[in-house]
C-alpha cells in the first residue's frame, strides 16, 4: 500500500512541476500577455516610464531561468502573488472559493455515479430490452448536450416556470441552490458512466469466474452483487477519476451560468479583468485538485482490486 502510494507520488511531482512551468511559460514569457498586454488592449494607455518601472518591480527583466526558479519557489511555498484587482493575495481569493467549488463538483459526481451506474447496470442485466434501449438513448443524448445549455433549460423550467428551486446564486449554502447546477454539471459524466457500466457489466457477466459461481449453485442475486458489481466497479472508478478533469472544465461554465461563487467563476472573471496572477492561481489550483483525485483513484484500485495489491 505504502509502496503504491510512494510510486504514485514520484509520478505526480514531475507532472506538477511541468504544469507550473507550462503556466509560467504561457503567462509570463509569451509576448503580449503581461505588462505589455496592459497597454495594448486600446482601453488604457500606460506611460512608458511607468511600464519600465513595473517591469523592474516584477522582475520581468531578469534572466528566464532565474525568474522561473523564483516563480517555482513562490508557488511551492503557497505564495501565488497578489491579485492585480483587489491587491489581496491570490491564495486568499481562491481560498474563499474552494469550498463552493468542491461542493458543486462532488454533488455533480455523486449524481452522475448514482444515476449513471444504476442505468448502466439495469441496462446490462436485460440487454436489448426496453430499459436498455431507453437508457442508452438517454446516455448518448447526455453526451451530446452542452452542459451549460442543459443548465439554462433546467433553470427556465424548474426555477422560472415551476418556481420549485432558486434560479441562481449560492444562497446560504443550502441544498436547494445546489440541485440545478449539480444536475447540469453531472449529466455528462452520468451518460458516460451509464455506457461504461453497461459495457463493463456485460463483460463480467460472461467471465469464467461468473460461470463458476453460477455453476456451484450461487443464487443469481448473490452472483450479481458479489462478483459482477465488484468487478465492474474497477472500470467505473477509472472513468470517475478521468471524468473529474472534464467535469472541472465544464464546472467553469456552469458556475458562471448559475453565478456560483467557485474557483471557475473566479477564473473567468479574472480573465476578463486581465488579472493574470489570479488566472494562474486558479489554473494551478484546478490542476492540483485533478492530480489529487487521480492519485486517490489509484489508491482506490488497490482497495477494490486485490490483483493489483498482490501482483506488480
Amino acid at each position, binding site marked *: 500500500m505504502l509502496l503504491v502510494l510512494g510510486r504514485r507520488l514520484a509520478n505526480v511531482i*514531475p*507532472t506538477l512541476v*511541468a*504544469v507550473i512551468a*507550462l*503556466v509560467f511559460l*504561457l*503567462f509570463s514569457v*509569451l509576448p503580449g*500577455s503581461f505588462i505589455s498586454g496592459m497597454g495594448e488592449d486600446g482601453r488604457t494607455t500606460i506611460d512608458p516610464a511607468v511600464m519600465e518601472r513595473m517591469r523592474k518591480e516584477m522582475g520581468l527583466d531578469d534572466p528566464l531561468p532565474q525568474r522561473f526558479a523564483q516563480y517555482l519557489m513562490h508557488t511551492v511555498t503557497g505564495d501565488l502573488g497578489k491579485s492585480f484587482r483587489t491587491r489581496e493575495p491570490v491564495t486568499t481569493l481562491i481560498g474563499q472559493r474552494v469550498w463552493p467549488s468542491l461542493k458543486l463538483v462532488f454533488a455533480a459526481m455523486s449524481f452522475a455515479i448514482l444515476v449513471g451506474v444504476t442505468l448502466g447496470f439495469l441496462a446490462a442485466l436485460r*440487454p*436489448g430490452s426496453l430499459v*436498455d*434501449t431507453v437508457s*442508452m*438513448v438517454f446516455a*448518448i*443524448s447526455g*453526451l*451530446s*448536450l*452542452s*452542459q*451549460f*445549455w*442543459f443548465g*439554462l*433549460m433546467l*433553470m*427556465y423550467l424548474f426555477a*422560472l416556470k415551476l418556481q420549485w428551486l432558486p434560479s441562481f446564486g449560492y444562497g446560504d449554502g443550502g441544498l436547494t441552490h445546489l440541485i440545478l447546477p449539480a444536475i447540469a454539471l453531472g449529466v455528462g459524466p452520468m451518460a458516460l458512466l451509464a*455506457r461504461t457500466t*453497461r*459495457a463493463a457489466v*456485460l*463483460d463480467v457477466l*460472461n467471465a469464467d469466474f461468473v*460461470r463458476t459461481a*453460477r*455453476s456451484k449453485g450461487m443464487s*443469481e442475486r448473490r452472483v450479481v452483487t458479489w462478483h459482477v458489481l465488484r468487478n465492474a466497479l474497477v472500470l467505473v472508478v477509472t472513468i470517475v477519476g478521468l471524468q473529474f*478533469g*472534464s467535469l*472541472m*472544465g*465544464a464546472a*467553469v*461554465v456552469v458556475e*458562471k*451560468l448559475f453565478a456560483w461563487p467557485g474557483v471557475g467563476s473566479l*477564473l*473567468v472573471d479574472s*480573465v*476578463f479583468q486581465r488579472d493574470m496572477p489570479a*488566472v494562474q492561481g486558479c*489554473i494551478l489550483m*484546478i*490542476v492540483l485538485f*485533478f*492530480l489529487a483525485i487521480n492519485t486517490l483513484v489509484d489508491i482506490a484500485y488497490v482497495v477494490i482490486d486485490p490483483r493489483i495489491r498482490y501482483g506488480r
Partner: protein
Amino acid sequence: MRPLKLPRLKLSGGTSLWIGGGLVALAIAVAIAAPLIARTDPVMDANLMNAEIPPGLDFPFGTDAQGRDIYSRIVYGARISLTVGVVSQILNSLIGVTLGLTAGYWGGWWDDVVTGLTNLMLAIPSLIFALAIMAILGPGLVSLVIALGLTAWSYSCRVARAQVLSLKGQGYIQAARILGYGDLRIMFTQILPNILGPLIVIATLGMGGAILSEAALSFLGLGIRPPFPSWGSMLSEARDQITTAPWLSVFPGLAIFFTVLGLNLMGDGLRDILDPQSTTRRT
C-alpha cells in the same frame, strides 16, 4: 443457468451510423447552403419593429432583442461551429498522430519526451487549457481554432503510439526496412493506413467535443463575440433574456445538440465497423 450467448446488437453499427451520418450531412448541407436558405442577413438585418417575436409563421424560430431572425442566425452559425470543429480536430489529429507514430516507432528519449508531454496534457483539463490560451490570444475564430486544436491531441497520440508498438515487430515492417524504406516512409505509408480505423473514430468524437468547447468558450465571451452568430455566442446573448424570450436559448442549444449527437452516433457506428478490438463491439 442462463445461456452464455452474446447480447444482441442494439442501436449500434448500421442504425447509429445512418442516423448520425444523416444528422451530420444535414448540418454540413446547412452550413454550405447558408446564403441560399437563410431568410435574412444574420448580422445586418436588425429591425427593432420585430424585436423578440416568439416563433411563429413569420419567424419560424422567433427573433431576438434586435429583431434579427433566429433561424437565419442559426443557419449561418453552422458555418462557424463546423469550421471550428473540423479544423481544430484536424490540428489535434495531426499533432497526436505525428507524435504518437514517431514516439512508438523510434522509442528512446523521444518516446519519453512525448509520453511526458501527453501526461502533462492529461493533467490539465482541456477546456481549462483552451481557456488559458484564449485568455492570452484574445477572442476570435482563429484563436479559437488554435486553442482547441492544441489542447485535445493526447488521446489520439496515446492510441497511435500503442498501435505502433504492437505493429512494429511485424514481418511486413521488417520487410519494408530491408527494402530500404526510410523511417518516415514506413510510419506514414506502412503503419498509418493500418491503424487509421481507431484514429478516425477518435477524430469523429473529438469534433463533437470541439463543437461543445467552442460553444462553452463563446458562451463565456472568450470565443466568437456577438454580433457574429456562433451557436455559443447566441446562447451567451440569450441568457439574459431567458425570462422574456426563452426561444432565443432553445434553438441554438438544439442545433448544438443535434450536430454533436450526429457526430457521436457516427463515431459509435464507425467504431463497430473500423475498430474490431473495441469493447463496445461486444455490447
